[in-house]
């Protein structure tokens, strides 16, 4: 079974963890969102893992720099 993850699901998750009042644009870089610090980044990854029952390698963490990249990586994990 293929699970399709919509970008707005990831936008909502990221906004919730970061405490943002608006959804971040899918291509907005992490470096452009001050609240997206190192601790929050880990919390975002763990929230994704818990919600979608996947596990990201530590080497993947640094590359998860936008909602669009996160969504693509998540889809790849779910399709594997």
């Amino acid at each position, binding site marked *: 079974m293929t699970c399709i993850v919509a970008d707005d699901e990831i936008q909502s998750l990221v906004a919730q963890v970061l405490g943002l009042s608006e959804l971040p644009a899918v291509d907005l870089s992490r470096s452009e969102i*001050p609240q997206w610090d190192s601790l*929050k980044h880990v919390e975002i990854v763990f929230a994704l893992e818990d919600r979608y029952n996947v596990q990201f*390698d*530590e080497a993947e963490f*640094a590359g998860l720099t936008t909602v669009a990249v996160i969504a693509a990586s998540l889809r790849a994990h779910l399709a594997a």
Partner: protein
Amino acid sequence: MTPDDAAFIAGLRARAARFINLGAVTAAAQREWIAHYLDRAGDYYFIVERPGSGGAAQPEGTVALYQVDATTRTAEWGRFVLEPGSPAAIEATLLTYRCAFDTLALDGLVCRTLAENAQVVAFHDSCGLVRTPLPVTILHNGEPRPSIEHRLLRSGWPDVERRLEGLALRLAKRTPGAARAMSP
């Protein structure tokens, strides 16, 4: 940290130059700085290392506790620089605080961050540190710059430790060798 770390530190600081003082920019100058540092009391400078295969460790950053005051039982923490993309911030911070509160038995820590270094300011907020309400200025390469000061007192340490430890232990499970080092 030893004089043999000079080349790594000089390279690391060059790679992360935007928000830190230039200081000793070459390995030779860094080695000389370290030689003076080793004679300084109340200053603990650490290399953040990633466990490697066969017991080898890879340097990944630096962190320090300095200006340790035995009378007030306080210190500053800083010189916190990690390789770009390193996921070690949480674990390095947890270990630094453990050293401060558990090993050195300090009662409080202070850190000052350039205000424009917004993600590091946010990191300290996220860890649970408390901002000093008054404006703070620090010298950055000789120029006074607006900064944010955070404090962590012993009374706040248990909550911060729980928060960091929960994340650090989950991170450590995916790093061979790290889980043992992080386990309480």
